[in-house]
């Protein structure tokens, strides 16, 4: 698919074809980011499909996915490029007696063969259009963020020994954030924004059916309703994500359950709940009944 020929309905169809269930609240921002050539900043709780969105775009446009996983302490060397220091030292040792001219050695060790491309440089030098996923950008610090938006503004970098490298193809850029800290206004201003919230019961049912077609309609609806009920509970320490709903329904199928009952919930709850206190809270009689009630509500 080419971006120039892209329409909203084609993008929607494309998502559907890739089993990525998305309504206009997701499709429109993605469409605009592609059309306006702007980075897309995707925010939302863990497990709602932020990273998956970049993967889907990569499959949809048939271009490679280049992923930069962010963490505190990430610096330019890890994100952009680094000289292969060990290889350079070995090379110097090998050729030190061969040449009198040190300039020759210097030119050699600061060439492509000694350059370690990191994700950002790989995206800039990619011979074809790529999807650049900058995952969990909120984990980096402010200095790196400032460096990042400089790269994202011009899509060119200067390497002192090699000169300025300009992107051959502007990549599709997707940044994700879990909101562990506030991102700078400068970075946000350069991006279009998409917030992915937990889905409604109806939408989650569609997601479950699309991703796990072997689960019946009834089980998908019951799981979606029960998970929705869990998310509405204020005392849960960690709300279940869509990824965990998928794990749960797959686990239920593996256990041979065709519908959600108290026994099935008890034996598979650890697939959807990852905190000891949450586990105990949900196994309390009242909570279990509420889950059962939520899942039965669908049948009425």
């Amino acid at each position, binding site marked *: 698919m080419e971006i120039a020929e892209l329409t*909203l309905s084609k993008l929607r169809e494309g998502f559907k074809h890739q089993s990525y269930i998305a309504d*206009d*609240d997701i499709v*429109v*921002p993605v*469409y*605009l*980011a592609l*059309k*306006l050539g*702007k980075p897309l*900043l995707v*925010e*939302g709780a863990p497990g709602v499909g932020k990273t998956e969105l970049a993967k889907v775009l990569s499959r949809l446009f048939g271009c490679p996915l280049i992923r930069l996983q962010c*963490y*505190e*302490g*990430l*610096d330019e*060397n890890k994100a952009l490029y680094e000289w292969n*220091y*060990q290889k350079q*030292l070995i090379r110097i*040792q090998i050729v030190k007696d061969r040449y009198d001219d040190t300039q020759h050695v210097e030119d050699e060790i600061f060439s492509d063969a000694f350059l370690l491309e990191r994700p950002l440089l790989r995206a800039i030098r990619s011979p074809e259009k790529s999807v650049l996923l900058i995952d969990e950008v909120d*984990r980096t610090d402010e200095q790196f963020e400032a460096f990042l938006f400089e790269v994202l503004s011009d899509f060119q970098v200067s390497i002192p020994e090699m000169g300025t490298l300009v992107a051959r193809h502007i990549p599709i850029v997707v940044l994700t954030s879990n*909101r*562990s*800290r506030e991102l700078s*206004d400068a970075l*946000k*201003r350069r*991006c*279009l*924004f*998409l*917030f992915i*919230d937990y889905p409604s019961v109806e939408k989650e049912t569609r997601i479950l059916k699309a991703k796990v077609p072997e689960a019946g309609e009834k089980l998908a609806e019951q799981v979606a309703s029960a998970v929705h009920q869990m998310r509405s509970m*204020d*005392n849960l*320490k960690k709300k279940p994500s869509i990824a965990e709903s998928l794990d749960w329904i797959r686990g239920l199928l593996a256990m041979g359950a065709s519908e959600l009952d108290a026994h099935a919930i008890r034996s598979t709850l650890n697939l959807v709940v990852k905190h000891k*206190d949450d586990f105990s809270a949900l196994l309390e009689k009242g909570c279990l009944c509420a889950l059962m009630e939520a899942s039965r509500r669908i049948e009425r």
Partner: protein
Amino acid sequence: MSVDLALARFAMMLRELGIRVTTAELLDAARALVEVGVTDRERVRVALASAIVKDSQQMPAFNRAFDLFFSPPEVLAEYAGKHELMLSKKRQELSRASEELLFLGEPVELTDLQKSTYARLKPEDQERIREFLDRSTHGKKVGPNFRPLIESIVQGHLDRWRQKLREEGIQVAVPVPVTGDALVDGLLDEIAGMDIDSSFLHRDLGQVRDEDLPYFERVTRELSHRLATRLSRRYRMSRRNAQVDIRRTVRASISQGGVPFRLKFRARKVQKPRLLLFADISGSMSKYSGFVVQFLLGLASVVDTIEVFLFAEELEHVTELLEPEMGMRQAAERIIEHSAQWGKGTNLAASLQTFLTEHRSYATSDTVVIIVSDTKTLCLDEAEAKLALLGEMTRDTLWLNTLPRQEWDRIPSVARFSRHVKMFECNTLAHLERIVRDEVLKYPY
């Protein structure tokens, strides 16, 4: 109205609601509308939101603004008319206050905020102020030289009333045309009447209703956990900002014939902060203190120690009563059960004296002291002296003042304590998170 003009006015309205809209974002919004068209209302909403709103917490405000702004023309005209009417009513209120509050036949000098406060009072309370002025006017040997004193009494009285109204959840505001555009101002009035701040982060913690408490507890826990997780990562060794350890690099290079193939880095020395918390639990302060205690306990993994003291008329050391995973209600129950100070009056001087006598060893040069209080206390001079002494013994003293900043000028203790501490306004979770992040945990330690 053209699309460009509509967008510009919409942006003006959003800015007044605290949503930052830059020209670049406005241009993106215009380009987005070209791409998606303007016939589908929901599509327009999503397109504008993705170009303009960069914070999910601002979405409720954006949605309200969108729903109102893109209403039919006759509805918009109605909002503008209502706004004009409201402005004229407010103007009447102000002039009525000027006409009614007279001393020696001349209006008492009051700010618009004080006049608005007067207008919000019950008729019997208004009557009391008028009676006071009337009696003062007709007193024996009363002359114009009494005016500053009388005005100061009335002003102080109205300021106290405003504080009381605020505690009851009634906000007194000065009516001013915000943008000068009747339509935008009218819509802003409509929004002001709605409870759009679904972001609990910005709500006054003293006003939290009991039924909302579980939600607030969860948000507090999440914020605290988020901060702790982020900081624990910072404590891990990173090559960024680290220095090459020459000695270890040379030693390691011996096996490679002296060629330093592998660089060794010097790990940063990590020293976690020690916190000393003094939380005021007198009267209306207890709720604020409860949130601060819960928030700080959530940071247990990233601080060296936290010692918690509660104070009202006296000081109580309660660290052992509290556990990091304890909810606010549970903590409050345990404190009420064990504490003799809950809900009493405030005597900071006596409380600090107890600390200096019985718990002095907790105050060390690497300790950060955090005090949660509205600064209102008995024995101000003595309290100030003790505070100065505590400040000399510790690294830093942060005062989380629960009073809104605009009230600080009229409370003498604020200026007195500010000489010895760093004072911050702290009555919402957003304030609390920012202060702890930027001030308590800012040191590289």
